[in-house]
């Protein structure tokens, strides 16, 4: 009996000797905490809000007609130390998910972008299926795969930060895009202007197009998603400072049937709705149809750049605006990776232009034969093989 326990003890000591940890080094966290004002959304950050609104008027630097290569007020960094001459890059990508049409379109665009660069000989993609825990493992896995560069689209900001820091620590250039993380260790962080600007675009449009005292219904997908919370925080700020009457803020779960039911209920409850603000456009068509089905005029609408909404907009002559969170941002990380591996400079924070579609230019963006949930801002029209992979 004692011999057995002795063996166990020895095994235990040997095991402990081989013990190691993947926990990354502690680094001071990047961003500060959002200001807390009970009437405002807790996600509202005045400084960032002002910054994003200012960006809307800034002139982008970069080639005309290629917004995915343009940058706003860039601060360049040197990447000479990452240069790998001779091509044959292995590009690795940790994708948060492909669980919604926006990400689907974006990912397809990214895959086609990779094909445009013969220097990339291998494109390794790991899909985290919207699970933080899996993405942490995925990034760890990629760190050990001899990648020339790692692109990361994080599922959640706070929880993925340690994993990103760990990836940076391996010495491989790390590029983060879409959602950010709380560390400045990546070589570049690529994103369009931001959620505050998106929300503000819509709210300002309603302020201009709805009479004072008019009733506005706000439709949101889910609480707690930081990119969406920022959109609402900005809109809330603008609505509070206006004479519009926000009669309701409802969560639709991104479900078209639920959206339609909620809007119908509000039309019945309020009698007349003068404006609809939405934080994303996937169920915009359902919301518009609710007005049509009730037999009332469709009011001023805030949508997004999905094809089904744009088509409906043009066909019915709606008063609408479509802020965008452009899917062409999925092209930029690949471009950035190639630049870094060639030793060219890139901005520390690569801010892409965030166009909005208005009544004036909507016709340019409607593409009749594309799928209903295809995003007009994909930047993919001039890519070889279009429209094949996106259709």
């Amino acid at each position, binding site marked *: 009996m004692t011999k057995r326990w002795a063996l166990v003890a020895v095994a235990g000591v040997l095991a402990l000797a081989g013990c190691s940890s993947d926990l990354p080094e502690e680094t001071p966290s990047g961003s500060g905490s959002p200001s807390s004002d009970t009437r405002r959304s807790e996600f509202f950050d005045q400084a960032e809000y002002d910054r994003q609104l200012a960006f809307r008027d800034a002139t982008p630097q970069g080639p005309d007609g290629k917004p995915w290569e343009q940058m706003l007020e860039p601060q360049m960094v040197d990447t000479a130390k990452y240069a790998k001459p001779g091509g044959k890059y292995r590009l690795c990508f940790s994708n948060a998910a492909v669980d919604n049409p926006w990400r689907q379109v974006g990912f397809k665009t990214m895959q086609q972008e990779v094909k445009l660069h013969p220097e990339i000989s291998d494109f390794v993609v790991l899909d985290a299926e919207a699970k933080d825990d899996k993405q942490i493992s995925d990034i760890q896995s990629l760190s050990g795969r001899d990648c020339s560069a790692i692109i990361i689209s994080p599922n959640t900001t706070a929880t993925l930060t340690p994993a990103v820091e760990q990836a940076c620590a391996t010495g491989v250039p790390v590029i983060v895009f879409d959602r950010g993380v709380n560390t400045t260790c990546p070589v570049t962080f690529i994103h369009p202007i931001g959620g505050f600007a998106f929300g503000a675009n819509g709210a300002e449009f309603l302020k201009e197009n709805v009479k004072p005292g008019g009733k506005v219904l706000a439709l949101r997908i889910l609480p707690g998603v930081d990119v969406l919370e920022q959109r609402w925080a900005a809109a809330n700020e603008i609505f509070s400072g206006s004479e519009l009457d926000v009669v309701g803020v409802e969560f639709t779960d*991104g479900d078209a*049937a639920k959206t339609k039911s909620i809007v119908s209920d509000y039309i019945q409850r309020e009698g007349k709705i003068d404006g609809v603000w939405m934080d994303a456009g996937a169920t915009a068509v359902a919301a518009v*149809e609710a007005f049509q089905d009730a037999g009332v005029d469709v009011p001023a609408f805030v949508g997004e750049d999905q094809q089904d909404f744009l088509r409906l907009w043009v066909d019915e002559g709606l008063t609408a605006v479509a802020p965008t969170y452009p899917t062409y941002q999925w092209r930029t990380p690949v471009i950035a990776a190639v630049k870094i591996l060639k030793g060219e400079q890139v901005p520390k924070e690569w801010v892409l232009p965030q166009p909005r579609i208005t009544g004036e230019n909507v016709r340019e963006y409607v593409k009749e034969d594309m*799928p*209903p949930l295809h995003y007009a801002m994909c930047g993919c029209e001039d890519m070889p093989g279009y429209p094949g992979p996106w259709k």
Partner: protein
Amino acid sequence: MTREAGVAARREGAASWRPRLAEGTAPVLVVLLLLLVGLAVTGPAYDEPSGYLALLKRAAPLMILAIGQYFVIVSGGFDLSVGALVTAGVVIAARLIDGDESATTGVVLLVLGFGLLVGLVNGLVTTKLLVPSFIVTLGMMLVLDGAVFLWTDGAPRGALSAGFRMFGRGSVDVPLLGEVPWSVLILLAILVAAALFMRGGTGRALVAVGDNEAAVRLSGGQVDRLRLLAFVLSGLLAAVAAILLGGFAGVSAQVGNGLEFRAITAVVLGGVLLGGGRGSVVAAAAGALSLEALFTLLNLLGVSGALESAVQGVIIIAAVAYAALGGGLRQRLRWRPKRNSTQPAPS
């Protein structure tokens, strides 16, 4: 059922053709009535029939799903695949129609056929391969979800035609009643057909299978065939729900999310003991309508969306506890004198 027993059952059924509520239906109807009164009090739209018609139109898909789920649950199983089947139906229809009006009829038939097929597979695997229906339909849910999006490369394509959407979205002029939504008419037709079916021999045999499968088998009943029928009906009705939902809400990638749990909740709310053998199809449909009415009422009252889930949870537990405790008592009282009978309760 043996021939004599079947004949006896039919005679009994023929003698009692006047509309009668099956046991256990009453509580859910009381709940529904309370909710409807609540709506009338709270919402201005519910002062006239058009408001209630709109509620029925919105609730029709869930009610139809609940009817289908009822068949499966009363015979002792589960169908977890209906939500995925609804999504699949809508996505397939959108892709095949692609905006072409002339394709509507063909695609509608195809979607219905697809629902039948899925139900058939579910039923066959459960009865022939002896896999519990919970697992079969869970596996089918995974397969449907994956396969449909594999086919469409992750996001729905195409578009539904106006003709297709008419069923879920449009209305028709009925003399005396005015504009009645198509979905309400379809719902009523299905409800009547289902109620009549459950009164017939096959319907009662279905209930018997859920109540005491061994007894039915020993008395010569075709247990496997009955169970298979239940799954086929569930799949078919899910396809109908898909057509109605696609019409109502349009193309979306997640139209069916969570519907299987809602349908099961509705059936349980209607008083069917999970494990089979009790309740009525009218109660199941009433349960679905109650759920929809409850959500609408909560919305009107301005109850925060988050609390909606908690309220639903409490109601579910309360309803089941009531049905089980009350039902258990009734069952004990009823079975004592008729110990040898294998006749199921009339439904």
